């Protein structure tokens, strides 16, 4: 592995000393399937002499076997990793490549150009400081070029290299190159780049890759490698206000209490005044502790441990910040969201979001608009599908500390996790916090829930009946309500069909609409509970997460899930409304149990089945359970 430096052979200690000053650049390469991206990266590895002889031998034999260069060395073969990809001839995931010169170490995120893998590009771009966007000189700027540019800009990359490749195939024609560059610059005005460097290349022939090409005498700019070695990326994270997201509280003994994390922006020194976002408490930095001794100053990017002058309560997820320049701290914010999963985004569904070390339950409210990644146009939409981008409000169950992503690329960024599958389903970048969160206050009334329920001689509760269509939910709920009424209790039933006649008549049966349907019913039930009423809700409610959402709206103990566990075969045989027949005939789409899933409750408070019991028996079981739970007795409020 011969590096360029003569020092290696002559003065290894001098070489090692020089290496200690080397910087690091992370960049992403984006291009379409045939733009020659793998060839370009392979060539950079090759020209920086990082190919070993055994790898070269393997490369030569592979090039003969499966190469696309007619037996000549196919640099692209250096890169493909997974067997299936090798056979298909396309890269389908993000791969990281490494090479270094005497000046810099490079980490290359190699991402696919194939249309359906936008999420991989976003992943690769998230850690990159520079984007190398490949263009086939014969084809000019394509839809993919615009998409790749938009995504890199969305992820906050400021520096772009426009690599106009395959110049050899257009006879190194300067006018064609100039036309492409002009068109791109016009397009890129709407993106937030701070520099665009266009280079005429042939990755295959090596033109302007490492050495200036004799074929492009009209080009006086840097070669690709020279540019990558010298490009100055913003080091301005250091100039922003100090932020330390606390990852770990270090407490080896009673005398030491340190707060560990990686400084996301700014700098810190002992004596600095700091504040903790969640509690608002302030203190001063006592020491910056590291394994290599205490530091006088630490800057963005360093992983450190802070001790403070005062004993204040700090835990993982808190952000220690400069007292004079606090970050935003809000539970509602607007964000741009990239969806990364086959299951669509469902507005209103509770997801987990992880922002630095902070984790919260959060809902993504209705989309403001989607952004077409090909045209950059805004489009209306209710949901996001895999690889779609949209702007939405996010509402978390607790306040989070952040700076807008455009102000600080190391803050205001989060991933979205499905609470049940644990999959990472999306990623988001905060545009700004919503003042709305702080302006609308809950109006406290003198007569409260407890007082209202006490007057009625009961405890308010939601009885949430869930089960398949035809399971007997409404029949049983009706009987339960009659029995409660006879006992002198105050009740109300929210029935799925009835609510769809009015409040929810604008909603259909897609997954997104089902979620909104449940959200509205859950909120309505919450108001009834506040009124002191025993509220019966009879809804198929097929998704666990929405039932969980409804449960989370009311207080502990107020939500009683009643699972009418009647098997599908029995429901289908009954088919009271004739719906199963229609669904089987394909006349109704998205029918629960047929072509839309029903997720069985795992911890329902009450389970009955109308297959083994009569509806009357089921209703009796439910009422006796309610007695057991104390719902039917008077509840003595604390006032």
């Amino acid at each position, binding site marked *: 592995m011969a590096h360029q430096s003569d020092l290696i*052979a002559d003065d290894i200690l001098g070489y090692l000393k020089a290496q200690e000053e080397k910087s690091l650049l992370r960049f992403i390469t984006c291009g379409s399937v045939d733009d020659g991206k793998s060839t370009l990266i392979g060539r950079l590895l090759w020209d920086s002499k990082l190919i*070993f002889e055994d*790898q070269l031998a393997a490369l030569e034999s592979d090039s003969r076997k499966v190469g696309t260069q007619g037996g000549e060395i196919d640099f692209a073969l250096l890169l493909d990793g997974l067997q299936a990809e090798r056979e298909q001839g396309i890269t389908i995931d993000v791969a*990281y490549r490494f090479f270094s010169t005497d000046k810099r170490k490079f980490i290359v995120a190699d991402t696919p150009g194939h249309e359906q893998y936008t999420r991989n590009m976003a992943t690769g771009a998230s850690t990159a400081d520079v984007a190398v966007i490949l263009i086939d000189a014969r084809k000019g700027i394509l839809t993919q070029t615009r998409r790749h540019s938009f995504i890199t800009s969305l992820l906050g990359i400021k520096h772009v290299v426009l690599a106009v490749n395959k110049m050899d195939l257009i006879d190194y024609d300067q006018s064609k190159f100039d036309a492409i560059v002009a068109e791109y610059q016009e397009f890129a005005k709407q993106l937030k780049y701070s520099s665009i460097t266009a280079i005429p290349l042939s990755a295959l022939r090596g033109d302007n890759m490492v050495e200036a090409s004799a074929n492009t005498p009209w080009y006086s700019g840097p070669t690709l490698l020279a540019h990558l070695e010298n490009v100055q990326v913003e080091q301005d994270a250091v100039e922003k206000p100090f932020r330390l997201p606390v990852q*770990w509280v*270090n407490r*080896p003994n009673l005398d030491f209490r340190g707060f560990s994390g990686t400084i996301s922006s700014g700098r810190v020194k002992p004596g600095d005044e700091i504040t903790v976002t969640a509690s608002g408490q302030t203190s001063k930095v006592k020491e910056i502790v*590291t394994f290599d001794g205490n530091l006088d100053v630490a800057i963005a*990017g360093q*992983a450190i441990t802070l001790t403070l002058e005062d004993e204040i309560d700090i835990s993982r997820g808190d952000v220690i910040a400069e007292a004079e320049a606090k970050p935003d701290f809000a539970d509602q914010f607007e964000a741009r969201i990239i969806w990364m999963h086959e299951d669509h985004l469902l507005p209103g569904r509770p997801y987990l979001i992880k922002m630095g070390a902070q984790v919260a339950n959060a809902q993504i409210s209705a989309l403001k608009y989607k952004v077409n990644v090909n045209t950059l146009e805004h489009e209306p939409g209710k949901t996001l599908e895999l690889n779609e981008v949209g702007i939405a409000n996010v509402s978390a169950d607790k306040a989070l500390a952040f700076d807008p992503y455009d102000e600080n690329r190391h803050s205001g960024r989060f991933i979205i996790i499905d609470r049940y599958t644990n999959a990472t389903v999306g990623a988001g970048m905060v545009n700004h916090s919503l003042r709305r969160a702080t302006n609308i206050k809950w109006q406290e009334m003198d007569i409260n829930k407890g007082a209202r329920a006490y007057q009625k001689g009961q405890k308010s509760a939601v009885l949430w009946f869930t089960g398949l269509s035809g399971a007997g939910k409404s029949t049983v709920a009706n009987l339960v309500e009659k029995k409660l009424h006879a006992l002198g209790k105050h009740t109300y039933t929210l029935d799925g069909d009835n609510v769809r006649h009015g409040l929810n008549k604008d909603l259909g049966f897609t997954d997104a609409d089902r979620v909104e349907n449940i959200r509205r019913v859950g909120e309505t039930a919450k108001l009834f509970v506040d009124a002191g009423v025993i509220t019966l809700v009879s809804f198929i409610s097929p998704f666990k997460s929405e039932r969980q959402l409804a449960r989370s709206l009311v207080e502990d103990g107020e939500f009683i899930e009643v699972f009418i566990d009647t098997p599908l075969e029995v429901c289908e045989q009954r088919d009271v409304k004739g719906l199963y027949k229609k669904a089987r005939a394909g006349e109704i789409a998205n029918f629960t149990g047929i072509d839309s899933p029903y997720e069985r409750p795992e911890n329902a408070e009450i389970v009955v089945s109308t297959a083994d019991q009569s509806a009357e028996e089921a209703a009796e079981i439910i009422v006796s359970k309610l007695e057991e739970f104390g719902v039917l007795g008077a509840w003595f409020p604390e006032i």
Partner: protein
Amino acid sequence: MQPNLTHLRQLEAESIHIIREVAASFERPVMLYSIGKDSSVLLHLARKAFYPAPPPFPLMHVDTTWKFREMIEFRDRIAAEYGFDLIVHINQDGVKQGIGPFTHGSSLHTDVMKTESLKQALNKYKFDAAFGGARRDEEKARAKERVFSFRTETHRWDPKNQRPELWDIYNARINKGESIRAFPISNWTELDIWQYIYLEQIPIVPLYYSAKRPVVERDGTLIMVDDDRMPLNPGEKPEMKSVRFRTLGCYPLTGAVESEAATLPDIIQEMLLTRSSERQGRMIDHDQAGSMEKKKQEGYF
């Protein structure tokens, strides 16, 4: 004003961030310790991450019983010196069946004494996160590996179903029985590792340095006769040669290179001027194209 961080300091900070994140997010993490140079760096980074406290997880070595004797001595000395809680796991089923590389071949030996053994140990101690010292530059299949790499209940890796990993935010959510493998030094290259060992003066197993050692040549590979379990073929006679190892594993499966490099700068110099890649000394990769990928799907690190 301090200069911007150098590449090694940036890599170091990234690794420490990952190590802390795993410790904070999982109930029972463990650091797999292979005794090699990458493991030595990993261990050093773990000490830095939690200083002044000791790392809040044990070290575990999956011992195939065929490691070089100097590796075992080094392991025990380091664990004692740094006060690490060290778990050594050996697949006793394999020992009973007398599995070894000479009698059963490299593939079966590795499968039983390493891959299976690791799964046994993870199940036995119910670890939900295991740190490994794998690097993305080691092999093509590893270039796409995540930093937090999800494993099913049966420890399988599914390359088609990996979680996207953005910024430095890692999804640590798993269900009971599932686990993750965490690779804090994913973005380091072999050269970074050596430069860091040099810069930080991290102790490594002496086998990396050249010395006179008894070796025999088999199929073009120099194998060190580390103990008397090694059967000698007719006419084979161990010769004393100046050799060193670029990678460490089971001694019968690890080729030595002839070298005079006896110091760290010598080693780095030799590596930079050499013409063959690090893994060439390992027998596992040569089996067939994509063999590392297969091993990974089955649970090999």
